[in-house]
């Protein structure tokens, strides 16, 4: 008979009425889970380098457990070998010895204290492992496609058998630690997937050969783990339904479906459907991929297996998940990055507080950090990975102040709601007719960059709830400061677009600003040079190229998009190529003449480029910010400068600055 660990009654929650499928129970094996929300395993690099669980990781997991509101909460995958070939992240948790059980128990207990179901994941990182060893290991030696990863040691037959036993032993430790569900990770290039794929498994022994033989490593693990955990613990496996490795001879989709069937035959109760490897050249989860793009994948898999299926990729919203469940495409909703951005996201849906959700912008900076051995961070969630530090959370202010904020962009608004939350009286001034600052302009770039504006919607809702007063269309001036004498001024005016670098020709009529070009308030010719090869320039270049312009990007950065995190920069490079944008990096404009621009390379060479219009998209310090700062100093008002007004950066700097100053006032 099926059992249930925690009783949840969702009857009176508005979200349960709105999303009845998401907030209905599901049975995995012999376990009933109260809802259909799953937090997917996420590395966070918060644990010690020898694999012990830290207070920071426990706190991180506790918040995500609270967020799933009774659903399934998965801890990060553990590596299982003392040699550490399976360790793919410097702060990855370990389970290669019983000595790790007490630490793992802390995670299970934290999840249980939030009345969620605790899922334990086994994750040998295989071909992308060995983060602190000279080698990683895999079924076969073949050179790495990405220089980031270590050379592969080809596992002997004995080492394969040892690895299977290590999975089994680690599973037993997970159960002893108190976890309720067991999961095997076989995705994106980790060891199980290495054995499954024709790309990485060239073995001639019983673990290699056709797709059925390549499944043996996986099925041996499934059977062994099942033996160790018993029949009542649900067993999940995460495996690729489409490796996206056709260019290097990876599994076909038909082969992947055979893998699914073999996994079910071997004894799994559920499959988490994934797409793509880290070595795939096709994007899967970046912002340019439309929501719901991959739903056809589990829908197709359902024709081959009859166990519950879940999927995470680009399925951020409960309405999509609810419909997908109703339509029979998935059985439960998995998410990862949205709960990095907002740990309480599903809970807020349940409670009918959707306006309080801080949305993930799919920038992948979380991944970029992990690959560079840094602790997890989130582009738009300042508290991510600081859950154990009370100073990162708003506390009531000891002295209530009147706070005037100049600028209704992400920095100003983030600061506004946090300061108001702490009890301050907050006024936001912005001379634009709409809140959002630079993000309004950034949203005009193609490839779903309009998603960025959702952070502003979050901010507006938070400000409204806390009584922040908006002065829209009104600029905070020295006169207002002198008249009103607020206790504190926060300058969040953003940066200025610089009209040139002093080179001749920048005063011509065909030289226009980024906003003039994007909003077409001035004519834009067919041949355009965009000056500035950072985010704004790239977005503007792409927007103009999409309108059929021949665009040339010129900028001082040595590579285009130096201010974009590496896990997303490759996408922009591809967009620029696809749209025929030529880039001159490490260059500047030497002169603007009739019908052409002379570009100067870093070492003094001059290159002529035909241009009807020059758009300046390079940013510098805000003149207004300096003026306001001086005016505030004149009145001896406590002053903070935040966001791009400090130095031009991006949305993340703005949000993090705003949050921290909101805490400090």
């Amino acid at each position: 008979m099926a059992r249930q660990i925690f009783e949840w009654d969702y009857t009176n929650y508005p979200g349960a009425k709105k999303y009845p499928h998401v907030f209905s129970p599901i049975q995995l094996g012999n376990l009933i889970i109260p809802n259909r929300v799953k937090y997917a395993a996420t590395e966070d690099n918060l644990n010690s380098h020898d694999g012990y669980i830290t207070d920071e990781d426990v706190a991180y997991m506790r918040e995500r457990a609270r967020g799933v509101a009774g659903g399934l909460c998965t801890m990060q995958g553990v590596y299982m070998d003392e040699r550490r070939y399976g360790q793919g992240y410097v702060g990855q948790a370990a389970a290669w010895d019983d000595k790790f059980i007490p630490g793992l128990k802390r995670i299970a207990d934290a999840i249980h204290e939030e009345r969620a179901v605790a899922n334990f994941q086994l994750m040998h990182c295989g071909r992308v492992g060995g983060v602190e060893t000279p080698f990683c290991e895999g079924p076969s030696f073949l050179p790495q496609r990405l220089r980031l990863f270590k050379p592969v040691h080809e596992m002997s037959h004995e080492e394969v058998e040892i690895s299977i036993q290590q999975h089994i032993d680690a599973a037993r430790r997970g159960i002893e630690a108190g976890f309720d569900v067991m999961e095997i990770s076989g995705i994106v290039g980790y060891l199980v997937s290495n054995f499954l794929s024709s790309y990485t498994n060239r073995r001639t022994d019983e673990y290699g050969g056709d797709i059925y033989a390549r499944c043996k490593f996986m099925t041996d693990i499934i059977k062994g783990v099942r033996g160790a955990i018993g029949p009542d613990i649900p067993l999940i496996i995460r495996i690729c339904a489409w490796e996206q490795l056709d260019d290097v001879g990876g599994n076909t989709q038909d082969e992947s479906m055979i893998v699914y069937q073999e996994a079910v035959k071997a004894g799994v109760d559920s499959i988490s459907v994934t797409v793509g490897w880290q070595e795939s050249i096709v994007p899967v989860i970046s912002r340019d991929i439309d929501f719901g793009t991959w739903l056809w994948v589990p829908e197709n898999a359902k024709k081959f297996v009859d166990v519950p299926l879940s999927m995470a990729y680009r399925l951020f919203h409960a309405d999509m998940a609810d419909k997908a469940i109703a339509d029979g495409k998935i059985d439960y909703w998995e998410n990862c990055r949205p709960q990095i951005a907002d740990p309480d996201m599903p809970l807020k849906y349940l409670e009918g507080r959707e306006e309080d959700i801080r949305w993930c912008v799919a920038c992948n900076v979380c991944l970029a950090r992990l690959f560079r051995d840094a602790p997890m961070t989130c582009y738009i969630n300042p508290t991510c990975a600081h859950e154990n530090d009370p100073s990162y959370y708003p506390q009531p202010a000891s002295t209530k102040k009147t706070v005037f904020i100049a600028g209704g962009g992400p920095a100003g608004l983030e600061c506004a709601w946090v300061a108001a939350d702490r009890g301050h009286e907050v006024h936001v001034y912005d001379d634009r007719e709409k809140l959002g600052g630079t993000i309004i302009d950034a949203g005009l770039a193609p490839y779903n960059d309009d998603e960025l504006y959702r952070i502003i919607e979050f901010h507006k809702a938070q400000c409204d709830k806390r009584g922040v007063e908006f002065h829209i269309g009104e600029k905070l001036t020295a006169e207002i400061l002198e008249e009103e004498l607020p206790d504190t001024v926060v300058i969040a005016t953003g940066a200025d677009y610089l009209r040139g670098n002093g080179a001749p020709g920048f005063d011509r009529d065909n030289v226009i600003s980024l906003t003039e070009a994007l909003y077409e308030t001035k004519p834009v010719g067919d041949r355009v040079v965009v000056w500035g090869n950072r985010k704004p320039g790239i977005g503007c270049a792409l927007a103009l190229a999409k309108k059929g312009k021949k665009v040339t990007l010129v900028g001082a950065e040595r590579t285009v998009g130096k201010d974009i995190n590496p896990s997303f920069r490759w996408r922009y490079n591809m967009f620029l190529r696809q749209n025929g944008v030529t880039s001159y990096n490490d260059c500047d404009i030497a002169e603007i003449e009739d019908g052409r621009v002379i570009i100067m390379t870093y070492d003094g060479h001059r290159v002529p480029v035909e241009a009807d219009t020059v758009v300046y998209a390079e940013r510098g310090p805000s003149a207004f910010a300096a003026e306001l700062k001086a005016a505030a100093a004149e009145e001896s008002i406590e002053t903070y400068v935040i966001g791009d007004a400090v130095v031009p950066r991006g949305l993340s700097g703005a949000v993090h600055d705003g949050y921290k100053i909101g805490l400090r006032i």
Partner: protein
Amino acid sequence: MSFDAEKEIAKLWAKCQAVQDENRRTFYQCREAAIQMVGDGADENAIALKAWEIKGKDVAKSYLPRIRMDKPKFVENIAKLFVNSWRNQGAVVSVEPGADENEVFIVWERCPWPTTAKQYGAPMTEDLAGCDLALQTTIADVALFSNRNLKIETTKAIPRGEGKCVRRLWLEQ
């Protein structure tokens, strides 16, 4: 300010050639340094070949992300990677078709490497063996990665006085 295109191109071209020359000189300077560090009894040929092997390995690393096995003309595409590499080093090199799409010939009409070898007193046998080893090493890794039986052999060589280098690149069935 006027813009003299001919002058700009001439300056750029001269700089490009200087970089190409410096690249080869650096290789032979490091070879010389390694031989002197080993001292008496140094096996010059073995040292040079090891350097060429490392070069071949590193070249393969740069090729692997560019390999697309799902595209037609796999062999020709690999050959073009070599062509681009050697053009960047100052060679005049092109791809010529073979008997079918599984065979091509890479033809070096001119290559600056033997000249530099002479300048540094390296024998032509070493230059040829080194270049061959680099190509073989690269192809071995490309073949391993792509799981295809890709082969390369030298049929003509400038260092042997044959006027040009010709390498046959083929997929053995």
